[in-house]
């Protein structure tokens, strides 16, 4: 049943995806409103799907696909919060495609739950998942904002009259969205990694943690880049091109760390 709701949500997000592509070439107030409503409706289905999973009694989020679904939901929540504050749907240009992709993968099939029986501290696990996903969502939005910043900067520099009527919010607003997400995401990410370590160390079946495991290395790399981003921004106000490079790098590292779920031995916790 949960999968069905998720597929409804996917249908709604598809509209958002189309919007993301259209918004780059033209500005349409009506379409952005349609996309917004579709996204909200999608979130309702999505929430129902997640709630059903939760009510099934186990912390079944710990399967990779359910994790993807949850991450997509967090990202959408983030997007909605930004919309509530800044009245702009423009981060959707980056967020919608990613959310659609995540939901699409998650809606393919239901994976067997592999994790929970090995974990002794369920509370830590939930904390780990929630924290790290919030960090990921913030990073995604920050990455999106830095791309939009770049785009808006190019438009303003190109000095075409259309730069006045573009769908993008003001440069400083984009900058603020990106910076605030970054600042918000960093502690979540840090705590998420710490709780993750706790879960791993205390997992009874593993006992010994291999620090050369790709999942751990990539996570540390992502965290390091994240820290560099926060630092350069705070210290010398890096933005624009340089910030976008860093954000892209952090995002790729995050993707790699995520993808490591598929080949890491420790995160999969499967024999």
């Amino acid at each position: 049943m949960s999968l069905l709701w998720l597929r409804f949500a996917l249908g709604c997000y598809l509209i958002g995806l189309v919007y993301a592509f259209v918004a780059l070439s033209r500005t349409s107030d009506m379409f952005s409103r349609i996309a917004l409503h579709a996204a909200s409706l999608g979130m309702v289905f999505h929430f129902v799907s997640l709630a059903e999973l939760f009510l099934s009694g186990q912390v079944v989020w710990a399967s990779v696909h359910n994790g993807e679904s949850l991450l997509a939901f967090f990202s959408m929540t983030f997007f909605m919060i930004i919309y509530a504050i800044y009245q702009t749907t423009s981060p959707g240009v980056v967020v919608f495609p990613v959310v659609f992709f995540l939901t699409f993968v998650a809606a393919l099939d239901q994976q067997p739950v592999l994790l929970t029986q090995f974990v002794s501290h369920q509370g830590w696990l939930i904390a780990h998942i929630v924290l790290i996903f919030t960090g990921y969502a913030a990073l995604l939005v920050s990455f999106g904002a830095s791309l939009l910043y770049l785009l808006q900067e190019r438009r303003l520099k190109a000095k075409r009259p259309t730069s006045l009527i573009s769908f993008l919010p003001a440069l400083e607003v984009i900058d603020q969205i990106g910076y605030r997400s970054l600042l918000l995401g960093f502690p979540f990410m840090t705590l998420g990694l710490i709780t993750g370590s706790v879960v791993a160390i205390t997992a009874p079946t593993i006992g010994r943690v291999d620090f050369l495991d790709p999942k751990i290395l990539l996570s540390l790399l992502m965290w390091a880049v994240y820290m560099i981003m926060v630092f350069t921004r705070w210290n010398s106000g890096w933005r624009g091109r340089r910030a976008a490079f860093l954000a892209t790098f952090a995002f790729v590292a995050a993707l790699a760390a995520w993808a490591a779920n598929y080949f890491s031995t420790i995160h999969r916790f499967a024999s």
Partner: protein
Amino acid sequence: MRFQLIGVNHKSAPLEVREKLAIPESRLPDTCRDLTAYPGIEEGMVISTCNRVEVVAHTTNGSADLRGFLHEHFHLKPEELDPHLYEFREKDAVRHIFRVASSLDSMVVGEAQILGQVKEAYATARAVGAVRGQLDQLFSRAFAVAKRVRTETAVGSSSVSIASVAVELAKKIFGTLQGKNVFIVGAGKMSELAARHLMAHGCASIFVANRTYDRAIGLAQKFNGQAIKFEDLYNSCDKADIVITSTGAPHAIFRREHGEQFLARRKNRPMFFIDIAVPRDVSPDMAKLDGIFAYDIDDLQQAVSSHVADRRKEAELAEAIITSEVERFEARLSTLDVVPTIVSLQDHLETIRQAEIDRVRGRLGQMTPEQEIAVEALTRGIINKVMHTPITTLKTAAKESEATTVVDVVRRLFNLRDKDAAAPSKKDEVGTRH
């Protein structure tokens, strides 16, 4: 109607070319003098604004080498300049002047500033005697037409101007202008206007730097701002988020190294430069820096062009006014051409009449007042009757192309001396020095 006009404007020539042609205010009188001394030119005037440089002349024989004048005066090679030049003669020149004065040829159609600039150019040329009868008439009419366009159409009414476009752009960069600082470099009317717009949208404080410190103080007081000594410009400029610069400096005053300095001190927070100076104050390589957004006068033009569409309808109405005014002016000018002939014809006949009466008086002896009146009435009556047809013919002919022929014939028939004609021939002697 031997008007001739040559020039460049924001549409025909890029800023790089206009920069080379720009004439500082102080050099304008000399340029006008040089122009009138050029062969074949009777009267001349130069309009030099940041968007256009135009030379208007009334020529002796309908064709003067204005291109040659520009090459000579600005020491430019023909291939450098000629592709950007436009040239109008007679009716087309009149139309162009009317359009310029009415702000239909402006970067921002309908902006009011151009009329003042043309008036200033006119006053300058007049002061040095470069504008007399013909150009005087042309420009007086142009000013009247501009007024008519302004009152009868809505071309000038919309708030779109460089200033409001600057505000719009600033909002695209900063979102809200609340709490942003503005720096005016080079106190001028246009920068003052832009500053006023920015302040009206919430900008917090204003700094003014000017070569003449007193002017900086004067302008700063108007906005409750702070005057900055020009030497301190680079040290304090980073305080500003928006810089409006319009100095008359011959070279860029903001160069790449300055931009890097500002950004370092501002922790890379963006800066918006509104560069309305020609030549530009912000060097192009500084404008390339990340975080520096510099819009020169041409870029602002592009930004406003999207608004221009809204005004197209009003502009069409204005163009119709211009067309009818050009016709009227042409008609009036040629009518005026026959007026001196009519006057001298009347003078001529009056002299004859007086002479004849004097002669008759000698023979008849003293006349009674009644007789005096009768003779007076008789002679006048004859002259008026005889003259009626020739004068009507002259006036009718004036509106057609044969005017000059008819005028010539009448002058030759009555052996009329042309007082006005003497002036240009003298001018020719002055003009033809090689």
